[in-house]
């Protein structure tokens, strides 16, 4: 089993408030790792450290190591633009660009300028196929992305991330704004995606974490309480607090 990302002694601060405390996690390649925990425990903060999205928030600071392919992601010298090509992010609320469906898929590809123009049609088709959206949109690629339903928009956001050929996909509650059918579509999709990508997903649904993930990490108040294989964690949690949370005894 290869370890894709190794997080060691990660601390994170918003100003003087410490949102993550000494986090240690190994993220396994081609596996789905679910992050669970009550609201405000630091799940979103954690995934923001992995692709350095916290750079966009003023007055934040991280220390420790997040080792990825021989570099420490947290280093000042890390090229965040390159990093974010390799580590994609899908947000809680679908956020397509105000452009056509195909322009959404090609948005980053065109701006990176590292792929051949004549490959664009196949990039569009492949990305949309991988995001299980192709059949629904193939006849209207030039229509605005806003003409899609919420679930379709979310899959479009996944497709545009896939178009940049990432290794890792971070997802922050990608189904919380979707209905059960759209949710199950995305869950099926995740099982496909993990063959090629490493996935880290934040979720508020215990059932979802149990259904889709291989590993689960339980956060509480900025601390990692328990991390391990999902099967074990949901059948025999080691920590009392984990048990309370997954059995619904926390808010």
């Amino acid at each position, binding site marked *: 089993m290869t370890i894709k990302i190794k997080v060691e002694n990660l601390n994170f601060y918003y100003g003087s408030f410490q949102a993550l405390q000494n986090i240690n996690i190994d993220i396994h390649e081609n596996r789905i790792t679910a992050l669970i925990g009550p609201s405000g425990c630091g799940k979103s903060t954690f995934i923001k450290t992995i692709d350095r999205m916290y750079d966009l928030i003023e007055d934040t600071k991280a220390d420790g190591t997040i080792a990825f392919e021989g570099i420490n992601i947290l280093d000042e010298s890390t090229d965040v633009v390159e990093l974010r090509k390799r580590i994609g992010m899908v*947000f809680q609320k679908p956020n397509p660009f105000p452009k056509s469906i195909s322009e959404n898929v090609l948005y980053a590809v065109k*701006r990176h300028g590292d792929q051949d123009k004549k490959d664009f049609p196949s990039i569009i088709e492949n990305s949309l196929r991988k995001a299980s959206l192709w059949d629904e949109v193939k006849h209207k690629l030039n229509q605005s992305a806003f003409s899609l339903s919420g679930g379709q928009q979310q899959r479009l956001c996944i497709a545009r991330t896939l178009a940049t050929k990432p290794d890792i996909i971070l997802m922050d509650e990608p189904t919380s704004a979707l209905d059960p059918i759209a949710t199950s579509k995305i869950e099926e999709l995740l099982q496909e995606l993990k063959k090629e990508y490493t996935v880290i997903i934040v979720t508020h649904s215990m059932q979802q974490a149990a259904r889709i993930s291989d590993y689960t990490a339980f956060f509480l108040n900025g601390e990692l309480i328990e991390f391990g294989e999902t099967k074990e964690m949901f059948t025999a949690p080691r920590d009392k607090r984990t048990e309370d949370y997954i059995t619904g005894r926390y808010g």
Partner: protein
Amino acid sequence: MTRYQKKLRMRHFYNQAFKVLLFLVIVVSLLVLVTLLFDIFRKGYQTLTWNFLTSMPSGRAARAGILPSLVGSLVLIALTALISIPLGVGTAIYLELYANRRSRFFKLLQLNIANLAGVPSIVYGILGLAIFSQMLKLGPSLIVGSITLSLLILPVIIVSSSEAIKAVPSSIIDGSYALGVTRWKTITGVILPMALPGILTGSILALSRAMGEAAPLIMVGAVGFVTFLPDNLLSRYSALPLIVFNWTSRPQEAFAQIAASGIMVMMIILLITNLTAIIIRNKTQSRID
């Protein structure tokens, strides 16, 4: 009647009374405007002919035309747009997306830009005269007029462009950064396209304000009565408000008439530019939604 019903009725009464009051306020201001427009139209429509638009001014009202001022105003505004929009939008991009918002320099800058928008236009005229006409020896030329008007409307363009940039949802900007797109390409890829309607509307409205200005142009040496068309950046020139001013200050009734025609020309141009602003906004808006 219970206490609650009573209160409800009182609230209802106040509500209605306030509505009537507001309506009256609107009627009064509209009446003033309509009377003014009607008066101008009544005086000016007869002399607003093709000949009037295409002739040089003259000492005799019957022969006088507005061509040099019309061309002068259009060229002046075009040059002003070329100078002020890139400068204003560039400044807004810097302020909103590059500057350190918490630095004292930034706060000072922001305060000053807001204040500059309130400085009387004649002050810009004095500035233009001192720096561009005299110090840089550009004289009473078209380019000095355009630079002066550009400075005058720059704060408005900066403020409206900043607002338009601020209104772009951060979720979409984050979406672009998360794909490994650089800051500059995020600006050109999503921020500017989404801010464009706001930027254009603000700029066009600012330009139409510049169009009606007389005071700063008088300061930098523009005149009403000119019998040639501007043919280069250093030409002398006239502008619509100046010729109108020239005509209204003459005692003869005939000049009052053509002054009214001149005002009509100005208003038609303003109407067209403002309509363009609205159309651009609606078009780009519907493309985004």
